[in-house]
């Protein structure tokens, strides 16, 4: 039974729990203890070390910044100004806090305040919805547009928007890259005639894609009043990230084992059967490798694109906070950084799990 548990744990990428399970069953105590040391204790220790280094670095930067401010006050206003500044910094007053790399505890505090903020905003939203419910019904009956909440989105809302955008972009990439990749991969002529296009467009920067998409979408949606920033950003994300899938699909399809293709020839499989029974399944592992790269690229460029397209999401959150310059802005940016990193990691893990599930040569 717990063998099954171990298999599941391994499958979803939590292999480090294996020694714990084994130990709880009393198997090979010594070996499993060293395994735990290697796979759980050592990483935890490294996290601790990381936080310590961060704390130390942040304190050093804080002191440098504070000294600089005091010195500046001294130069401008003499001893009195310097004393005032020192007292102000020591008192923790918002107006004169040194603006530098926040410490771990500040980041933690900001994280909680962002969550608190989210609670307030969603309560507000709920209240607004209740208030406008009857009115909206009337408006709907009258054929008018309902009133929507236009308040500030919370941090969690931003995360959700970003995830939505990245998935829309990712789906777009799949729907463009996989079919085109299969078609190109099947034909040598097509491959050599289109290769230049792929090679030229692949390295183009996300910013340029965004501008290109902006040019086109702006014209196409001239008459529409709706917000085009979401459309622009997800299309840009899709176009930026689809290349890995396209190239891998082409490669997977064009390098199917020759012997296997010969089998298909000897059996005289029709073209459709050949594609679906032989070529696609055998190139699936490579396609999935491409999709994994695509998803991680999509998530990476998303932040930059949101930032530029001013569409809501984590990217614009970071940018706004940076422009904002409030005293906890820096720590909020660091919170966003960790959230971005963790979500990127989770997305990759999910893809890896799906990849393991569909690929035929699993261990």
């Amino acid at each position, binding site marked *: 039974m717990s063998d099954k548990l171990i298999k599941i744990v391994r499958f979803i990428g939590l292999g480090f729990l294996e020694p714990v399970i084994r130990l709880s069953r009393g198997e*090979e105590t010594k*070996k499993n203890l060293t395994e735990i040391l290697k796979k759980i204790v050592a990483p935890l220790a490294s996290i601790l070390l990381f936080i310590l280094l961060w704390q130390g670095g942040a304190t050093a930067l804080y002191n440098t910044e504070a000294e600089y401010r005091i010195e500046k006050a001294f130069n401008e206003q003499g001893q009195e100004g310097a004393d005032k500044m020192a007292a102000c910094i020591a008192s923790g007053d918002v107006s004169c806090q040194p603006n530098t790399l926040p410490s771990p505890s500040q980041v933690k505090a900001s994280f909680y305040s962002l969550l608190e903020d989210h609670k307030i905003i969603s309560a507000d939203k709920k209240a607004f919805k209740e208030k406008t419910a009857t009115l909206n019904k009337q408006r709907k009956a009258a054929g008018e547009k309902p009133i929507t909440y236009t308040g500030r989105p919370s941090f969690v809302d931003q995360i959700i928007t970003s995830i939505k955008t990245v998935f829309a972009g990712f789906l777009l990439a799949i729907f463009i890259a996989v079919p085109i990749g299969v078609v190109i991969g099947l034909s040598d002529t097509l491959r050599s005639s289109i290769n230049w296009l792929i090679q030229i467009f692949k390295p183009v920067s996300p910013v340029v894609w965004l501008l290109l998409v902006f040019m086109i979408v702006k014209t196409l949606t001239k008459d529409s009043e709706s917000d085009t920033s979401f459309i622009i950003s997800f299309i840009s994300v899709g176009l930026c990230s689809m290349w890995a899938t396209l190239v891998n699909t082409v490669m997977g399809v064009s390098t199917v084992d020759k012997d296997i293709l010969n089998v298909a020839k000897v059996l005289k499989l029709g073209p459709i059967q050949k594609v679906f029974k032989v070529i696609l399944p055998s190139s699936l592992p490579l396609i999935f490798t491409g999709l994994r790269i695509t998803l991680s690229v999509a998530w990476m460029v998303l932040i930059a694109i949101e930032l530029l397209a001013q569409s809501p999401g984590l990217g614009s959150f970071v940018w706004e906070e940076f422009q904002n310059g409030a005293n906890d802005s820096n720590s909020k940016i660091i919170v966003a950084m960790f959230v971005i990193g963790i979500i990127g990691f989770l997305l990759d893990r999910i893809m890896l799990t799906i990849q393991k599930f569909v690929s035929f040569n699993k261990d």
Partner: protein
Amino acid sequence: MAYLELNNVSKTYGKGANATEVLSNINLQIEEGEFVAIVGFSGSGKTTLVNLINGLLQPTSGEVIFKGNPITGTSHERGVIFQNYSLLPWLTVYQNVSVAVKETFPKENKKFRENRVKEYINMVNLTPAIHKRPKELSGGMRQRVSIARALAMDPEMIIMDEPLGALDALTRGNLQDEILNIWNKDKRTALLITNDVDEGIYMADRIIPLRPGPNATLGPEFKINIDRPRDKTSLNDDPEFKKTRNGIIEYLMEIGEERTTTETIEYTLPDLEPKYFD
């Protein structure tokens, strides 16, 4: 005491419920200057046996004794030739052999080492390809480099783990002759692991089958009483060859029959003719 001795050697991988005993109760004595072939099949634990003798693995129980002392690690005294050549792809033939020579003779001067490398490359007839890299060589030539490398380290014993398994018949035959020539020159002790009975008969003094694992053990030994040098073609007329060969093949067939399972369910074939479309 024999030159190399394996006494009741067993090797187990894993522990507890997952333990599998790959080799059990291996007993083997090899005398100095002898050429012994072990005929085994894939999955029979050959590689484990080789690694026990060259010192990469330690036995779970029993002992492996080389010249009176238990083997505790790898040693230059025992050279190994692997099936997959294991050459360094970014080095030339000369450099590949040179790495090994430097390792074995760190104290000798440059000239000595250079000569030694050249001598052994010449011995396997690779002088024309001395500055080529492995990927420019055929499989047979790569294996020659690997042989030169192993021998240039001046081992007292050569261990060969299916050295010719990946080569075609003609190249195989040529390399067999080359290995025999080299072995003949200074009568080093040799252990050959192979899956080819004929290769074993042609090259060895004794053949010992390794029964397939798990729990692989050595079978009865077959002495090859055929005078050297042996000739592949005329061997076929040698009654001793026929007798020994048939004996070994029959023994292996018996092992094979033990492995096969009998079918249980009888399926009936529908009486249908295929349709072909042109």
